[in-house]
Every structure is written in C-alpha cells, then in structure tokens.
C-alpha cells in the first residue's frame, strides 16, 4: 500500500464542535501568527527595499519610510539583462522537466507493471542517484563535458560544456531518480485488473503505458511537474560550473551580475531578487497544492 494516494486526498478530519475560545488557543494563535510573520519578514523586507530609491535610503537609512520608486526594477532588468536570462532558464527548464517526466515514467511503469527481481536494484539505482552530492561527480563530469563535441548548430561552444544541452542532460539524470521513486509507488497503487483488461484487448506494452497508465497518473505528474519546474529553475550548481559564457547563464546563477565589483546597491539587489523569485512565487501561489503534494508524495511513505 502506498500513501501516494492517501496523502493526496487526506480523509476529511472529523468535524468537531467549535469550542469557545480558550486562553490556550489564544496563546497558540498569537504564537503561530508571530512565527508566520517572522518567517515572511525577510521576503517582505526584500520587497520593501526594492521599492525605495538608493539615494533616499543612503541618507535616511533603511530603518525609515519613503523614497518610493519603481526605478530599481527597471535598472535591475536592464543591467542584469533579466529578460535574456529568464529566457535561458525557460530553454533549460522546460525540456528538462518534460524529458525527466517521460523517462522517469517509462522506468516507473516497468518497475510497477512487472515484478522482476531486478526492479528493486533499478529503483535503488535511480533513487540513490538523486541523493548523491553533486560535487562528488563534478571532476569527471566536467572533464567529460569538455571532451564531448557538439555540432555548431547545437551549441556555439561546440562542446557539451557551456551548452544548454549539457545542462539539460545533467538535470534530467539527477532528477529522474526522485520521479521514478514517486511514480513507481503511484503506479503500484493502480489496480492490476486494468492491465489484464488491456491485454485481453490486445494492447501492446507501449499502449498500456501511454493509454492506460499515464492518463491515470495525471495527478502525480502534475505534482511532479510543478516541483521539478521549481527545482530545475532554482538549480544553481551545475549552471555555475558547466557554463562559461555570461549570456547563457540561467537566471538563478546570473544573480551575481547585480553585484558591483567595488560597490553593492542593495536596493538593486533586492529588486533583482524579487524578479528572480516571481516565477517560483507564481507557481507557489497558483499551484500550491501540487507543490505540497509533490513534496509529500516523495517523502511521506509511512
């Protein structure tokens, strides 16, 4: 039995009669509200700082109010070329997520559909790969990427190094494990009669995978897609070490452009940070349930 489905649709807690507010409850609410506001504070502070001009805060200090402006956003957008870098992130994230889900669902299907002894090894191999420290693979991978040639139309570096292709492949290889793990559990919970019925109809393995299993996995796929978009968009390490050309960096690892050599304008940095955070925040607020379910699908198998 998996909790894959259970955590998704938690049984509604029994409705308790609403009790009068006791002092203990009041204390609890005050405590939780204080913690919640404390937790939101760094983000709110970044938004606040981004909306004020550097000249004003330089004179009055940051513990003040006033100097409202949107100029920081304009300057940040221009100096750090966020438009270009956001587009780079899209080039990397979208193919990487689609490929991860496709490849992971294939492996997960085989693991869930058949009960071969090797399946356990396969699952272990994929899941563990997701948990290894990236730096432990850096040296050989870095060497490998600088040796593998690509045709010029695929990358102007003519190498896997410093190309989107390389980053996409590394991200897929790393993220596959988590998705295989989640999807295979999800698929194991599907009724086996489906396959019996499909076989009676003469459906091939591919059709069983694509037309029977995959449509039923939509909730899990949606949750994983949300999570993986966030993770790959946020990925910093591989982009930092496997890219060289400044123009090609995805947005998360291009934040450093906002930092001057000798002088840092924090109002500008905060505007840049907010800009970079916007896509993930949009995902968070629109697809919050998917995001949470994705995380808990992977971890709470208990």
């Amino acid at each position: 039995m998996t909790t894959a489905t259970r955590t998704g649709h938690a049984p509604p807690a029994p409705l308790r009669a609403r009790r009068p507010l006791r002092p203990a409850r009041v204390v609890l609410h005050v405590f939780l509200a204080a913690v919640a506001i404390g937790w939101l504070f760094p983000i709110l502070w970044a938004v606040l700082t981004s909306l004020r001009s550097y000249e004003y805060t330089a004179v009055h200090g940051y513990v003040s109010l006033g100097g409202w402006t949107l100029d920081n956003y304009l300057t940040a957008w221009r100096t750090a070329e966020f438009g270009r870098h956001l587009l780079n992130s899209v080039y990397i994230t979208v193919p990487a997520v689609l490929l991860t889900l496709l490849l992971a669902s294939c492996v997960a299907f085989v693991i869930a559909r058949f009960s071969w002894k090797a399946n356990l090894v396969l699952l272990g191999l994929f899941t563990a790969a997701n948990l290894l420290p990236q730096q432990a693979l850096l040296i050989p991978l870095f060497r490998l990427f600088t040796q593998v040639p690509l045709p010029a139309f695929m990358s102007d570096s003519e190498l896997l190094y410093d190309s989107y292709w390389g980053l996409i492949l590394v991200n897929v290889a790393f993220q596959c494990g988590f998705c295989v793990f989640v999807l295979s559990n999800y698929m194991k919970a599907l009724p086996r009669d489906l396959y019996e019925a499909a076989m009676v109809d003469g459906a091939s393995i591919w059709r069983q995978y694509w037309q029977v299993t995959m449509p039923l996995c939509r909730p899990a796929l949606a949750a994983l897609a949300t999570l993986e978009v966030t993770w790959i968009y946020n990925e910093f390490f591989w982009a930092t070490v496997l890219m060289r050309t400044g123009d090609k960096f995805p947005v998360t690892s291009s934040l450093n452009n906002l930092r001057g050599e000798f002088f840092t304008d924090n109002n500008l940095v905060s505007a840049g940070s907010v800009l970079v955070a916007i896509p993930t925040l949009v995902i968070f607020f629109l697809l919050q349930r998917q995001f949470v379910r994705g995380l808990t699908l992977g971890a709470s198998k208990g």
Partner: protein
Amino acid sequence: MSDQSQVPQDHAVPSAVTTTTTGGRRRRLRVLSRTDRVVIALMVLVPLLLVVGLVWLPALATVGLSATDWDGIGPVGDIEWVGARNYADVVGNYPPFVPAVQNNLLWLAALFVVATPFGMFLAVLLDKELRGTRFYQTALYLPVVLSLALIGFVWQLIYSRDQGLLNGVFGTDVDWYGDPDVNIWAVLVAAGWRHVGYVMLLYLAGLKGVDPSLREAAAVDGASEVNTFFKVVFPVLRPINIIVLVVTVIESLRAFDLVWVINKGRNGLELLSALVTANVVGEASRIGFGSALATSMLVVSLVFITVYLTTVMREDRR
C-alpha cells in the same frame, strides 16, 4: 528476463497465492511479443544509460582519480597511482579542510538540533483544527520554493554591514557575511529558515496519516497531550523520522549555493562542497586532490542513502 520473473518479489504474499501469481506471470510473459520486449528494454535502458553515464560512472571515476596524481592536463596515460597520498594531503596538508569539516558538522547540528525539532513542533501545532491554519502553513513553507542562492541575496539585505537591517536597528557595525567569527552563524540562520518550512511540511503530511483512534485511545487512558505525542504518535511516525533525518544529513552535506554566492566558501564559510568546486574550477586545478575530497563526501552520503533506501523499500513491502 524470463528467468528473473519466476522469483516473486513480494514475500509477504501467502504461498498459495504466490503460486497462482507466478503462473499468471509466466503466462503473461509468453504473451509479451517481440516488439513488447524491445519496447520494455528501451524504456529501461535509455534512462538507465543517462543515470549510469552521468551519475554513477562519474562517481566511480571520482573514487578512481582520488588515488592518482593527475593534474588534469597531461595525457591519461601519464597518470600515476599514488595510493592514499591525496587523502593524507587532504587531512594533514590542507588548512581549509578542518574548518570545512567543522562547518559541515555545525551545519548538520544546527539543522538537526534546532531547525528540525522546531519544524516538527510547528507541524504538531498546525495539525490541530485551527482557524487560519492555511495562512500559517503558507507563510512557513514559502521559503522552500526559493533557491538557496536567492536566499543568500535576500538575507544580504538584513546582514549587510552598511546597508543591512540588523546593523541599522541595533546601531552595530558587524559585517555579518564577512566576519569569519560570525558569518557561519548568520548563514545557518538563513539555511534554517528554509529547513524549518520543509520539515514542517513533511511532518504535517505524516501526522495527517496517523490513525486518529490511536490518539483517542490515549486520551481515554488519560494521557496528556505531550505524553500522547512522544509515546504514541512519535513512534508511529518512524518512517517520516528516518526520512527527515536523511534529508537533513544530505542537505547539510550538499550545502553549497548559499556560501558560494556569498564568498565562494572562504574566510569562515568553508564547506567540503565548496572546496571540491574551488579545486576544479578555480585557479589551480588539482584533480587527484579534489577527487579525494569528493570521495569523502561520497562515502558519507552513501551511508545515509543506504539507510534511506532500506527504510523506504521496507515500507514498500508492507
């Protein structure tokens, strides 16, 4: 493949049922056409090739290179085996190594002793039927969607010496990110800020799965809420506890982004991951030496990955 299929994987099934399913499986296998077999092979082999080629073989190569003196430039044929010399150099002849290990352990301790229990505590509080629980939850796990690199920048607004909030409010003059005596603590606050939300989320999901009758039984027996949690609920959460433990260890070992955006892991912010990276992409590329550092990370992570896998797979069997 057909010979493997005869070994049923699920040992929990009573033997009578096992025989029938094995029979059924054999019949099913015969039904698999040649095309089906090719399709299955491709479905497994393509992803496997990617993961083995880009994760497992490089990991093995790292272990191999750690016993060589390769400088990364000369031909592969010139590589000489130096045995454990790189490891001896790492431990005895590399000043940043000891601070890095200390910082990684400190990272682990801070997440494990402070952030994790706090996240669990908040999950327990939020598990009660509260009005406004959605708002509290959202606020707490909002940092989880932000990248650690971005978090480094967000906290810079608070920590910066000349433009930061902390110094502004308290009138102090501390360079929170720059002063090697305090910067690791400042960074740990930021890392913990994110970790609490993550742990809270995992426990909240776990708590929702706990059978309510357990708690009711404890309440009938007159157990206090605290007692019920520690004696009844907490033991039931064992799988989640282990997963959180492993997640915490792995996160502490993999910690990188935050210190790299601040100062590339120097001057009080040494971490193993940053040292490995600095040895490869930095000015002096010392392949064998960096590999020895990386291998040490690999070994620690594999121990905990094994714990994780045995836990989740045992749960799987049930």
